[in-house]
């Protein structure tokens, strides 16, 4: 417990450094702006801005603080386009539109925005507090993980990914394998053997992480926007004078707490981020409500639950990333990749070896959440202006940002073609209902997965039974099995009783 408080104190020292403090605020502000743009969610925002943040040459803790600020800022901002436009910025904000937009149409736009800001704040803060206590405990447990335990952990991560994300488990699994395959391109670090490079010098060192992220998220998003071609501006609802009251807050306080709790724990599960968390929280709230008839027509509970959950899951997803080196969501996979670019390997040792990064990040999230609440209540009108940026200008801007980012870091024109090709590939994956988050998870984890497997088998001299020797790994394999089997069984039982299936998150 003492370690937590002394860690937090050292973290605040980092986060309150004037420059880092400025980055927290700048990141939150930029994140909210990006999140408020229709159609652009946290993952695209972080992807597009990652190379630029990297190119600025900050210290790793400063860069990660900035990127994390953009991440949860965008989770906040996403609700603005959901409520006022009925256009969710990403899959995690879909549930917010269900009751948020009807509230705005009923003339309660101001109330919906302020209520969701407070729900987001509670969810986010709840998650950071739990993270401060859970993180170090999990890290000190995971320090004893052997390579074979890591292999089991990875299997569990991909199992929960396949079972909980996307509409088709086989497609999700395949998406993850595609990511792993992309990661296997390049020179094998252990033996120096080139794999799948076909003699092309540009990919000897492997495909650059930045290129994959920008291509699959930034460029694919761009192609998607052109496909939708919303010419001109979308019609936004006006923000009115209504505001959330203490009575409203008292009415939804348990909803917010339940949503935060659900969001945090779903966020921790590897691979399952805001989209699953908000869907589960919404479904649970609807089932728990005594009178659920108004859900979908502007019920405050239906707005508060998913908003609290998706911000809590953003915090929850950071826990496995920081402590195990296994990202809890697509966006944290990008953050993990960002840390790797700085030669920082997140994992159980990070709390001891690089406390300024681990604790600095956690402390910055406390500050960021408060800052977001403060800038979101009065400035919501300013952010709502972002919704009126004409699409025909926003779309080219995304391409320009992507090009600046890739070129300024790598300075290789070859990579510009690469992001375009990956963008086309990513767009096809999206159109065919593959989710992209597993691809990036697979890509980030590919090296780690292979290294641990090879290390484990080196230890055992090629005997595969080492994978099943420790209790940690056996339990993880059982959990992996459960996470696949339970949803299938529950689904069957529901169907046989003739109930609706619970809302499955789009990814």
């Amino acid at each position, binding site marked *: 417990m003492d370690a937590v408080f002394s860690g937090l104190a050292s973290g605040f020292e980092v986060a309150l450094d004037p420059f880092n403090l400025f980055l927290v605020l700048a990141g939150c502000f930029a994140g909210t702006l990006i999140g408020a743009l229709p159609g652009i969610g946290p993952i695209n925002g972080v992807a597009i801005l990652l190379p630029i943040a990297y190119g*600025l040459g900050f210290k790793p803790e400063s860069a990660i603080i900035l990127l994390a600020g953009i991440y949860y800022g965008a989770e906040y901002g996403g609700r603005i386009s959901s409520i006022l436009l009925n256009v969710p910025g990403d899959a995690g904000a879909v549930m917010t539109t269900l009751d948020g937009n009807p509230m705005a149409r009923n003339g309660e736009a101001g109330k919906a925005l302020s209520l969701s800001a407070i729900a987001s704040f509670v969810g986010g803060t709840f998650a950071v507090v739990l993270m401060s206590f859970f993180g170090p405990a999990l890290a000190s447990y995971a320090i004893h993980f052997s390579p074979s335990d890591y292999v089991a952990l990875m299997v569990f991560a991909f199992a929960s990914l396949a079972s909980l994300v996307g509409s088709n488990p086989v497609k999700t699994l395949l998406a993850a394998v595609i990511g792993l395959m992309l990661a296997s391109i390049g020179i094998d670090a252990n033996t120096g053997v080139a794999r799948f490079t076909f003699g092309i010098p540009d990919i000897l060192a492997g495909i650059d992480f930045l290129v994959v992220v920008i291509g699959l998220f930034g460029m694919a998003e761009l192609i998607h926007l052109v496909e939708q071609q919303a010419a001109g501006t979308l019609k936004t609802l006006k923000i009115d004078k209504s505001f959330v009251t203490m009575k409203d807050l008292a009415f939804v306080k348990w909803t917010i707490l339940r949503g935060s709790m659900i969001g945090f724990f779903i966020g921790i599960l590897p691979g399952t981020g805001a989209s699953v968390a908000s869907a589960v929280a919404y479904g649970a709230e609807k089932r728990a409500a005594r009178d659920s008839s108004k859900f979908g027509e502007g019920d405050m509970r239906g707005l508060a639950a998913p908003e609290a959950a998706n911000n809590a899951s953003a915090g929850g997803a950071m826990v496995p990333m920081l402590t195990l080196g296994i990202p809890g969501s697509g966006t944290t996979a990008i953050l993990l990749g960002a840390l790797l670019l700085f030669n920082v390997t997140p994992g159980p040792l990070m709390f001891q070896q690089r406390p300024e990064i681990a604790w600095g990040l956690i402390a910055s999230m406390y500050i960021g959440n408060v800052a977001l609440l403060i800038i979101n209540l009065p400035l919501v009108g300013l952010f709502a202006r972002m919704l009126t940026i004409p699409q025909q200008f926003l779309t080219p801007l995304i*391409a320009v940002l992507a090009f600046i980012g890739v070129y300024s870091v790598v300075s290789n024109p070859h990579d510009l073609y690469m992001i375009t090709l990956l963008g086309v590939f990513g767009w096809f994956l999206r159109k065919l209902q593959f989710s992209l988050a597993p691809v990036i998870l697979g890509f980030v984890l590919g090296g780690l997965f292979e290294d641990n497997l090879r290390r484990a088998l080196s230890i055992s001299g090629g005997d595969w039974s080492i994978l099943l020797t420790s209790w940690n790994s056996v339990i993880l394999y059982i959990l992996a099995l459960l996470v696949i089997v339970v949803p299938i069984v529950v689904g069957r039982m529901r169907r046989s009783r003739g109930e609706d299936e619970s809302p499955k998150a789009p990814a």
Partner: protein
Amino acid sequence: MADRIFAGVLLVVAIGYTIIAFTVIHAPFQYDPLGPESWPRILGLVAIPCILFILARPDVASLGLPAKTWGRLAALVVMLFGYSYLFQPLGFIIATFAFCMALSLMLGAKLVPALAFSAGIGVVGYFLCTKLLELNLPAGVLTIFR
């Protein structure tokens, strides 16, 4: 159908990947029991059944896009390749100006706002990035700005 075509292409790639993993990749001296070839073999052997499953039970019948949309997307990809091609030789300012003009006009912007927007992004973007943020962007033919 769309699913099947895409899965078919993926299948060809995955089979190629697996064949290479089984035949070409080989370490001159085996340092560890698995070597560089086992991991890609495992991946290939997981990917192929997944793709076969999708081939057998596709769930997206067609992309459902009208021909006009396909034309627009093709134009976008051409523009992006053009932008990539010209980015370094012409320099950021001119290439960005041309790309922004082309794309915003295609998306239905009026001529004058598009001109103002494209010139603004090109010039302001260049100086913001190179002078203020100290990022590396190509000056291209406008060598005086280097």
